[in-house]
């Protein structure tokens, strides 16, 4: 499963000439030339900054909006709440290409085109259903008695959430947030179409390596390696956190 990634990273350390050789070369003298050239292609620091702000900001906002919603849906379930949950998920089924032009026109009029804020808001909407749902399944596993006890002590709803629910639910929240970060970091369609210069993100930078006039596999690999590196490491470090929140109610 990992081999293609490994192969790409290897290619990134080759020269263009070696990247094409047949039979493929495994033993190579690594060179950083491709990385230098890839870096010369654009302001990478700016792209990383844009991508991070959009991914982290949207995740933060999404989690803040989701916690009360998931709390309510999980602990005060009604038919309408269940419908609300399904409806939220169904908003994810709209194909982005279908609504690009409407969104584009709205963004133009709100002066949100080519702004990181604009991307951030889109990502909130894209990730919100998933976060609410993951938190919902996680909250459902928490016995109501714990919250009940807190309430007997006279805590208000806010205190109840802050002091009792959140500490217990931290793995679930972390997991949902991680997933949201990963999806926003890798998102390419909206970032390609709603940004032009100032708010360009990493996936758009990678797209600029697609079919140049002249094939640049080593450069492309170098750029791609740089772009996937942060999230790959994040994923590796946090895989247990991620897994715990993905239980969807299987853990009793």
């Amino acid at each position, binding site marked *: 499963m990992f081999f293609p990634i490994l*192969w790409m990273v290897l290619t990134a350390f080759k020269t263009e000439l070696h990247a094409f050789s047949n039979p493929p070369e495994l033993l190579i003298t690594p060179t950083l030339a491709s990385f230098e050239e890839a870096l010369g292609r654009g302001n990478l620091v700016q792209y990383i900054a844009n991508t991070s702000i959009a991914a982290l900001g949207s995740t933060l906002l999404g989690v803040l*909006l989701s916690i009360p919603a998931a709390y309510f849906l999980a602990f005060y*379930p009604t038919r309408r709440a269940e419908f609300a949950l399904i409806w939220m998920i169904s908003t994810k089924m709209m194909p982005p290409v279908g609504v690009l032009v409407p969104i584009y026109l709205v963004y133009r009029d709100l002066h949100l085109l080519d702004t990181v804020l604009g991307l951030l808001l889109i990502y909130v909407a894209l990730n919100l259903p998933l976060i609410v749902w993951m938190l919902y399944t996680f909250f459902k596993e928490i016995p109501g008695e714990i919250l009940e006890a807190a309430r007997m002590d006279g805590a208000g709803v806010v205190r109840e959430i802050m002091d009792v629910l959140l500490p217990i639910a931290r793995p679930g929240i972390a997991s949902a947030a991680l997933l949201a970060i990963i999806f926003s970091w890798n998102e390419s369609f909206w970032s390609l179409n709603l940004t032009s210069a100032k708010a360009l993100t990493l996936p758009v930078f990678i797209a600029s390596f697609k079919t140049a006039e002249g094939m640049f*596999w080593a450069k492309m690999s170098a750029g791609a390696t740089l772009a996937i590196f942060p999230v790959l490491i994040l994923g590796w470090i946090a895989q247990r956190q991620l897994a715990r929140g993905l239980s969807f109610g299987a853990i009793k």
Partner: protein
Amino acid sequence: MTRVSAGRGLARFDIHRPNALLFVGPAVLVLFVWMIVPLALSLYYSVRRYNLLVLERRGFVGLLNYRLLLLDPTFWTAVVNTLVLVVLVLAATIGLGLILALLFNRDFTAKNVARTLAISPFFVMPVVTALMWKNMLFHPVFGLLAWVAQSLGGEPIDWLATYPMLSVVAIISWEWTPFATLILLTALQSLPGDLLEAVRIDGAGRWGEFRYIVIPHLLRPISALLMLQTIFFLTIFAEIYATTSGGPGLATTTLPYFIYLKALLQFDIGSASAGAIFAVILANVVAVFLLRAISRNIFQGELP
């Protein structure tokens, strides 16, 4: 879904019941704006002749866009391709995910490293995934698979042209199998050990253990997977765009790609909007079927 689960909730706290508007309201409002504004605009554009590039002949055309869409064989091919793609990738990811999860649920040396590597594809950007597979693995002259085929004395295959749909399915499955693996592995690890022991004492073999304990236990996570992944796969676009561009012919033209052709190649916003409305309808039809079939597992799993 006649009865709503209230077993676990704080139903008896109903007097303290917090204001739904305050709690669920903000999230619903965000999604409502996100959904209703583009949807309303799409509905409006779908009954107009509206090409971004043409300033003349714009205006109300009634259901013309819908009629031409329904008469277009390409459109129906795209609908079928979309469903085929979703079903194949679902089967591949859940099947492979289950095998990997069972594997990683055992003990062997370097298990953690192996698992970490196995789930890595999920963290890679779809754009990178597509470019990587297209150029470095599938390429019929310089690709790794061509080299393998030649070393074994065979002819290199132009994968993306000869087996376009299967190639795309392979790419997307590679990307999403780790997600299934993670979810199923988490579920497996929560299997109570004494339950398994009890079955073993009863003399059930490995197959019986799998059939009567593991599978029922995995029903809920698999349902969740089915639903979540269907949602993601219905709108898959980047992987197709960057590899086959919907071809050759119409072999991998899915509904999102079809709408893309209308919207960003022809800049025909009228037709694209009509297509988008159809895509939303299709998604909802699929969702209703899916929810009918599995929602009991997801929402009321704790009830007998």
